[in-house]
């Protein structure tokens, strides 16, 4: 009797708990999406600020290819060295 009570309480806790965790995080997914789009619309200066580093990041993107090439070469070298 006591043990079946304990089990049913365990099952209850699992269903309730897991259900709640999913509901909460699902809500959080939507709310976060909503928040991101609202904030990005409202805060216009942000893209302006973001534009300033943009020219900096453009050459960075160019460097990235170079960097990837160098890293790939290094990885190959490391592998063949093994």
């Amino acid at each position: 009797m006591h043990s079946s009570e304990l089990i049913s309480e365990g099952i209850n806790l699992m269903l309730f708990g897991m259900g709640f965790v999913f509901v909460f995080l699902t809500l959080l997914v939507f709310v976060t999406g909503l928040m991101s789009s609202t904030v990005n619309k409202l805060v216009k200066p942000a893209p302006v600020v973001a534009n300033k580093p943009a020219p900096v990041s453009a050459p960075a993107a160019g460097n990235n290819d170079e960097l990837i090439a160098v890293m790939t070469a290094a990885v190959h070298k490391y592998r063949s060295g093994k």
Partner: protein
Amino acid sequence: MEQLLSLWQGSGLYNLTFGQLTMMIICLLLLYLAIVKGFEPLLLVPIGFGGLLANIPEAGLAMSAAEQAIHFAKPEVLAALAQAVGANTTNPEVLSHLVHDAGPSAYASAQLIAQDAGYANGMLYSFYSVAIASGIAPLVIFMGVGAMTDFGPLLANPKTLFLGAAAQFGIFATVLGAVGLSAMGVMDFSIQQAAAIGIIGGADGPTSIYVASLLAPELLGAIAVASYSYMALVPLIQPPIMRALTTPEERKIEMVQLRTVSKAEKIVFPLTLLVLVALLLPDAAPLLGMFCFGNLMRESGVVERLSDTAQNALINITTIFLGLSVGSKLMADKFLALETLGILALGIVAFGIGTGCGVLMAKLMNKLTKTPVNPLIGSAGVSAVPMAARVSNKLGLEYNPHNFLLMHAMGPNVAGVIGSAVAAGVMIKYLGG
């Protein structure tokens, strides 16, 4: 000669019990694992050393004044204590159980009587009551974790929150396992104890300690040790499960580059999370509130000094006292029980199930959504920041040397922190008081 005899009878060697010796060996093993093998040394060194201190015979460092009074068993003090808790026996063993079961006000009066008789709280007992019994240390650590957390990857791909949710299944499956064991008569766990054991599966040390201190303080030592040792074992426990549940093709999936997240989004997110917690689950507010506060200090960028203190000095100080306090719970009479083995076994099951569910959820997401999802990031849904994410990254690189999953895995990783705090809140709501 008589003085010599009393010196010998007061020595540690004379009073050393077998249990204490065993516990000292276990603590030395913890120290060995921390120092030589590098298992979570930041926590296991204080915990192991605290355990050594707690098991020094006769010193009673981890005992309250009342416990010491009962241990030294002067008849007149025992009689006064028995009166305070309304018992008609002066048998020390019976009395020590009664004192603990008598409720806070009777316990407080027993404490006062013991202090009148000249006994004082042990050092580790005081640490424990300030750091853990009050709930403060885990919460301060959570604030520091918040100050160290970058929600960028999560904000760039909020869907990874589902992975953090799925991985919490390990927690609840383990609760069921623990009550199952009690129902079969193998162990004897109450539903509160089962819940506190299950939370090990959240792979989040402070959360486990917080929940255990509220629901099952008597198991705190074993739960904390299991929780931190398994966190150190994440790189060993997770990969076999991840390999078993995925195909080599899936492991090679490359994910789309994450979008950049604006500063404003990062500032607003902790506030959004806090509002959601406040509206839906106030019981998770202590944990997630401190977490959000720490994160806001980091992202707002105007309180660099506070953020820096929260994630360095303060978290280190707190860790020292938290570790020593957990060590105080490694006393022979509480730790050397069959239950401890059960907790260790259930803890690893919780970890495994959580990892598996995260991976399966990621597979499902990969099938259902247009953007590809590498199932390896699912395992990062158990918290263990950032170890679990590193494991995902490492395994991904093994199968595709150009596939850097680290940033993608950080999303589910921090989602796991939120998920296990929510699960903790649900358990406290459902079972506490």
